[in-house]
């Protein structure tokens, strides 16, 4: 009796917890609200199965508890029942899978007009690079990384000259404009994760990975690294700020192009040389 009741109460408690506990996802800030929808769908289907099976177990334990004078039913198989259950499960599973695959297809298909932003990860922090006026990100190679060229841009590539370099933990993106994050790391695995955006993808040294989204709500969001990257993993935080057009333009204007940065470094170097000569 106690056992049956406990299983019953655990089930009821789980449902109550689900609906009334304060812990739920943060309000979505990107177009990936449909990921939330697939989760809700999954909750309903699996929730019904969970409750049904738990109640069934509780009922059995209560109803068929041991009695010396009674014998259990002798029925090794029931082909019909087994095949019915198999098909019902298969249908349930298909109902979960199909919408999942549809949304995944959207997730991996980047719209052509998406604005490309490079997210640059290192142990342990973030930098960003915008494509500049020409809309193309210049090519990079890890061996060119040095103090003067922190992003390792290839000098010969003309597309890189007007790239805007954001050597800070903070990125601004424009509301309602699709953005493709091109994810790059110079050391170990990282993952560019903003809980409110829902999207996620590991950054792998040697290749550029990506995902895309459209920010849908103005706000200031925390960036977390979601792939373990060593002792400083937990402290690898940044910020993404979703702006309306005006604020975004103001921020963009403050960023420095690669060409200007090179010139500035050159100037500094020359100054130092001059100082040395004196």
């Amino acid at each position, binding site marked *: 009796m106690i056992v049956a009741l406990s299983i019953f109460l*655990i089930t009821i408690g789980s449902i109550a917890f689900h609906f009334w506990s304060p812990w739920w996802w943060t309000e979505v800030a990107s177009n990936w609200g449909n990921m939330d929808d697939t989760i809700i769908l999954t909750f309903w289907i699996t929730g019904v199965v969970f409750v049904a099976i738990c109640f069934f177990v509780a009922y059995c334990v209560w109803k068929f508890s041991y009695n010396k004078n009674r014998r259990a039913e002798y029925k090794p198989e029931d082909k019909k029942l*087994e095949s019915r259950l198999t098909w019902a499960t298969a249908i349930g599973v298909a109902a979960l899978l199909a919408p999942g695959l549809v949304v995944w297809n959207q997730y991996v298909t980047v719209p052509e007009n998406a604005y490309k932003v490079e997210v640059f990860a290192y142990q342990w922090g973030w930098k960003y690079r915008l494509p500049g006026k020409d809309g193309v990100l210049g090519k990079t190679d890890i061996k060119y990384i040095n103090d003067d060229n922190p992003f390792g841009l290839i000098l010969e590539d003309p597309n890189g000259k007007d790239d805007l370099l954001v050597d800070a933990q903070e990125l601004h993106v424009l509301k309602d404009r699709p953005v493709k994050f091109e994810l790059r790391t110079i*050391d170990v695995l990282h993952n560019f994760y903003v809980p409110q955006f829902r999207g*996620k993808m590991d950054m792998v040294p040697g290749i550029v990975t990506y995902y895309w989204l459209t920010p849908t709500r103005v706000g200031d969001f925390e960036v977390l690294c979601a792939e373990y990257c*060593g002792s400083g993993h937990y402290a690898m935080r940044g910020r993404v700020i979703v702006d309306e057009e005006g604020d975004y333009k103001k921020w963009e204007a403050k960023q420095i192009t690669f060409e200007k940065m090179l010139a500035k470094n050159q100037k500094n170097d020359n100054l130092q040389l001059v100082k040395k000569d004196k």
Partner: protein
Amino acid sequence: MSDEYEHKLEAKSDYVGDASSVSTPDIDAVPAAELPDQELYHSHSWWTTYVFSQDAKYIGIQYALTAVGTGLLGLVLSWLMRIQLAFPGLGWLDPASYYQFVTMHGMIMVVYLLTALFLGGFGNLLIPLMCGARDMAFPYVNMLSYWAFVVAVLVLLASFFVPGGPTGAGWTLYPPQAITAGTPGSDMGIILMLISLILFVAGFTMGGLNYIITVLQLRARGMTLMRLPLTIWGIFTATVLAMFAFPALLVGCLMMTLDSLLGTSFFMPAMVSLGETLTHEGGSPILFQHLFWFFGHPEVYIVALPAFGIVSDLLSVHSRKTIFGYRMMVWAIVGIGALSFFVWAHHMYVSGMNPWFGFFFATTTLIIAVPTAIKVYNWILTLWRGNIQLSLPMLFSLGFIVTFLNGGLTGLFLGNVTVDVPLSDTYFVVAHFHMVMGIAPLLVIFGAIYHWYPLITGRMMNETLGKIHFWITFIGSYAIYFPMHYQGFVGVPRRYFEIYDSPYIDTSTLLLNKFITIAVLIVGAAQLLFLYNLIVSARLGKKSEKNPWKANSLEWQTPQMPPEHGNWGKELPKVYRWPYDFSVPGAKEDYIPQNQPPSEIIGAKVEKT
């Protein structure tokens, strides 16, 4: 089998010596023995009996005790981690030791506790007894297997004492961070971990060959494959999986060792570390992930299948009812085993592998839910119209059903590629795999220990202590992991030494952390109660009668209990039926042991098996 071969066998059966078969009635006929009786090694000294034992029963107990001892370390590490998460202000740990403890906890629990306990422990104890054999096929190799495991554990423990400490790379050991500065223990610690795993795989291969060959070759007369207890089916299939899966881990470990020691670049692309470009070039970190998960996913089933098998037997015995749908259960075990090799990359949806793989692996992953669901249905249909004894093994089995159901269903979230994106690398994942491959198999292990304890010691474990242990463990671990899923929904990432008060996390989430930690401490402490019961009952427990649960399978039918060296006395058992003939109409008792000849149960309306 050709006719010619059968003739030969008949001719052979003369020298195998089966005088009794002449006088037995036709209905009791069993196939002739195919092999002569096994010659056994007989120990002569205390050392060869208890330490370098070649008797599978002893080796099983040795395996189990070593695994549990290592597991206790894993438990203590989890306490320390949880205290850090809930009370970061205490400052007991620094980030490096936190990550080292996370790593060692994970690896110990998955490989050195669960795998070793299910296959090395229960496999050794139960395979010969349940198949009706005198011992494993190769007792000496079996002994070597155990001692290789011991050396593997010692190497693992040694890594706590080397400069830099054990590896803190996470149990998945992903390169490049596993072997580059920035991760604790990236010099000596990781190398010892890799060597320990290599030793474990070598030792396990020796044991695994034994399990497979024993099941295939040394079954008693009449013990067809479809009369094997599901426990054996689970352990057998898991061992086959392990034989295919562990080599992937082995090569992964070898390649990473080479990358680290010799500077090769299997997994190492050009990268910067500590501000300097390393000499590595051209390697692929994702290749390691493929190798790791090609092992890692079957590994989940290497732990789960023995648990599935054992719990099926516990449910059947303790509800005095035939397991429902035995044949479906067998095919589900085999099917899950086969499918488990086609789903590994569902751990890698957001790893940066080609995103188009997501379609394939999401589909295969959800397909595997079907045979798994069939197993759950058949367990609960075994309870239906049963005669359910709420003994300790039954309580733990019921706990398993609820826990496994919960953990299995959350697997449908993570396996479905889109749903996985927001949830991966959060506490949802942590909660899911602890529920499904931590707590659920552990509940089966506890049930199994309470069930087979009398077979090992001849005594029963204390029922009251056992019940306290059950309720704290079952309710407590549900209280730990159920709410933890919701932390994952909030977006709390895993492997964070400290969460801080991030803007998107409200204080109640941190409060929940404290609640979980307190539950962890209580549940952990309850395991000490279990250990006390385990140790003290060996001396002071109530003496058990023979076959105390009135089970049908062969391990309870040995001439002596606990079984002696060679298990079966003079003559090997003959098997006439499967182990699930409970509550057969017309039979005198509510159980018919596998070795009870049909001539003794005339009148029982038993279906032929």
